[in-house]
């Protein structure tokens, strides 16, 4: 058999290599002499330089990784190909040559900006040792040289950037950078063309103020200390918040968390998830104001369980009500209903308050996601009280989900009567529902075939308002039904990070 692959012209080999994960592209250098530097040439001709492979950062000393990045950038410049995006994710050296490393990073960023890169991503994770040594909570404030230099770049004074350099930047992503509130303000003032801004684990940020005419996408992920958020971005289409300001205190409260969202006429999708979704919340505050009240015009929404909480707290006394006139796709990241539930089993969980205090005249698709790994065991599948009807979750008036055609419940266990109550509640209120999909848990908690049958049988006899609604129960691998537009679950991603 002839070696057809090695006979292909270089440019085809390059597109094949660019399609491979970085690590596998690099490995091909061991195939034969023909392949020795193909991966480098492929990179040098690519409009995207991406060094965010986890193994690249962690599997070698920082100085060596830095040398490779520098070499690729030089080759790229010699090759003269356009550079659209430059992304690096490296581990900062814990000691010694940190200064040189930092200067390298600054140099690359300056070079990339000078070459006209429209997208820049700098992710400088502190080294493992430091992470372990630093007490939890302020491990990102250890002020190692690398973060300082990242900050130096952000102050824009340390780097001789071309005047028009940042003005053309369209996307910026900073992770674990020690950017301060003031530095961010200056940076944004210089990036007039910025369309996408992502800030991840920037622990020095406390009061974020984003004013940008062109900004379409804003992500604020895991920036723990942020307690104040002001956004003036009339073109904003997509907003993701995984943080602690998802609840803001009412104006009159002493420790008010300020949120000002201004007018966002084209806002399309919003993701709101509280960082301690899987942890605790200070229940002493009874004056939370739900963040979702600031973005009622979203068409697509993901909301975590904590985000539902204030409906209970706020609405207990006065029946305040929120209109979400455009909402078509809603995803609720519900924490364990058992934990959420009151000691009195007849007391409804907060998810019901949400449905009763929100109007969604055009809601078409509803997704409910239970935790994949609940902390405690299952409770009884049958209601502890006589009759498992949900009359107890009536609020004195009926709600109707008049446009709802599709419901999907993910990580459905079928072992808790609360799960069944919620599904039954929804079925009875969706008169034109076409399909209900119950997706079981995968992995270790996956039900056996027998258990699956039990769930199926029980699901088929549920009372429903729409006679034609199809009900299906399936395993995650068998599920080919539509998904919500938001398919990243930060509370799951970050929980893993925290446990590391």
């Amino acid at each position, binding site marked *: 058999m002839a070696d057809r692959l090695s006979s*292909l012209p270089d440019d085809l080999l390059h597109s094949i290599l660019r*399609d491979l994960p970085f690590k596998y592209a690099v490995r091909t250098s061991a195939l034969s*002499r023909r392949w020795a530097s193909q991966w480098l040439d492929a990179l040098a001709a690519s409009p995207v330089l991406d060094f965010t492979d986890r193994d690249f950062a962690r*599997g070698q000393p920082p100085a060596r990784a830095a040398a490779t990045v520098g070499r690729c950038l030089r080759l790229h410049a010699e090759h003269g190909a356009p550079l*659209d995006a430059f992304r690096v994710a490296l581990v900062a050296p814990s000691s010694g040559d940190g200064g040189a490393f930092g200067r390298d990073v600054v140099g690359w960023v300056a070079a990339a900006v000078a070459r006209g890169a429209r997208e820049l991503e700098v992710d400088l994770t502190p080294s493992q040792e430091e992470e372990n040594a630093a007490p939890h909570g302020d491990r990102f404030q250890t002020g190692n040289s690398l973060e300082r230099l990242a900050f130096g770049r952000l102050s824009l004074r340390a780097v001789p950037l071309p005047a028009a350099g940042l003005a053309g930047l369209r996307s910026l992503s900073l992770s674990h950078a020690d950017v301060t509130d003031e530095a961010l303000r200056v940076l944004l003032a210089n990036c007039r063309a910025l369309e996408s801004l992502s800030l991840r684990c920037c622990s020095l940020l406390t009061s974020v103020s984003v004013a940008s005419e062109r900004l379409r996408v804003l992500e604020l992920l895991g920036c723990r200390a942020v307690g104040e958020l002001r956004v003036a971005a009339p073109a904003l289409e997509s907003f993701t918040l995984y943080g602690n300001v998802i609840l803001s205190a009412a104006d009159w409260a002493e420790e008010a968390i300020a949120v000002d969202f201004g007018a966002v006429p084209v806002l399309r*999708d919003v993701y709101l998830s509280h960082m301690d979704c899987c942890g605790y919340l200070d229940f002493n505050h009874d004056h939370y104001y739900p963040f979702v009240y600031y973005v009622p015009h979203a068409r697509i929404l993901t909301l975590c369980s904590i985000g539902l909480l204030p409906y209970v707290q706020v609405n207990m006394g006065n029946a305040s009500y929120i209109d979400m006139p455009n909402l078509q796709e809603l995803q609720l990241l519900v924490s364990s209903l058992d934990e959420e539930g009151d000691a009195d089993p007849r007391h409804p969980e907060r998810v019901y308050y949400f449905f009763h205090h929100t109007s969604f005249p055009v809601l078409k698709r509803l997704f409910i996601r239970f935790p994949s790994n609940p902390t405690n065991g299952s409770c009884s599948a049958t209601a502890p009280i006589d009759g498992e009807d949900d009359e107890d979750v009536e609020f004195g008036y009926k709600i109707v989900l008049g446009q709802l055609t599709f419901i999907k419940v993910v990580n459905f266990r079928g072992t808790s009567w609360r799960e069944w109550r919620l599904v039954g509640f929804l079925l009875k209120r969706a008169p034109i529902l076409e399909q209900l999909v119950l997706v079981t848990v995968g992995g270790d908690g996956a039900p056996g075939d027998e258990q699956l049958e039990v769930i199926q049988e029980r699901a088929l006899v549920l009372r429903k308002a729409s006679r034609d609604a199809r009900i299906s129960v399936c395993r995650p691998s068998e599920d080919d039904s539509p998904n919500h537009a938001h398919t990243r679950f930060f509370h799951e991603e970050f929980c893993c990070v925290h446990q590391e």
Partner: protein
Amino acid sequence: MEVDKGKGEAEETRKVAEADRDTVTLKSSDGKLFEVSKEAAARLSTVLAGMIAGGSIDDNGTDLKQIGSEALENVVDYCNKHANSIPSAALISSSISFNTAPFKEPEEWERKFVDRLSHDALFDLVEAANFLGMERLLDVTCHKISEMMKGKSPDQIREVFNIKNDYTKEELEEIRQELAWAFYDD
């Protein structure tokens, strides 16, 4: 090729002047003739588009001497399938990114289309697509090749593609040392 039209209409179509035909005829290196939708050919192949626009299409079969009949059949098959395929419904992406992905994932039918090819037929098709300037088909076939390489050790890749290792033992060791991070779990 079948064109979904009424019978009377089909008769009409045959009668219209040759220049207005909605198909073109292509001839493989071994002399076999294939008919392909003109619209799809012009849309999917920069080379065929240039020939159609430049009037260098031979109604008795345009010679494509570099392409064998099996590969040409696949090219034509792909074009016609493409002409008939319903574009997949636009998905709402979770976040808007202007950063164009280097490659759009193959559609289900495209995946099946390349999956059924033998090793040699796949490479023949890559070369044919390259010759005809068919960007999308190149993407799909190259993607298939990279899938065949993904997750494999250099030894396994050499075996799959019959690549001869012309390094000395020392040279190879040097490469693996220098790029050790990429070979950890190899």
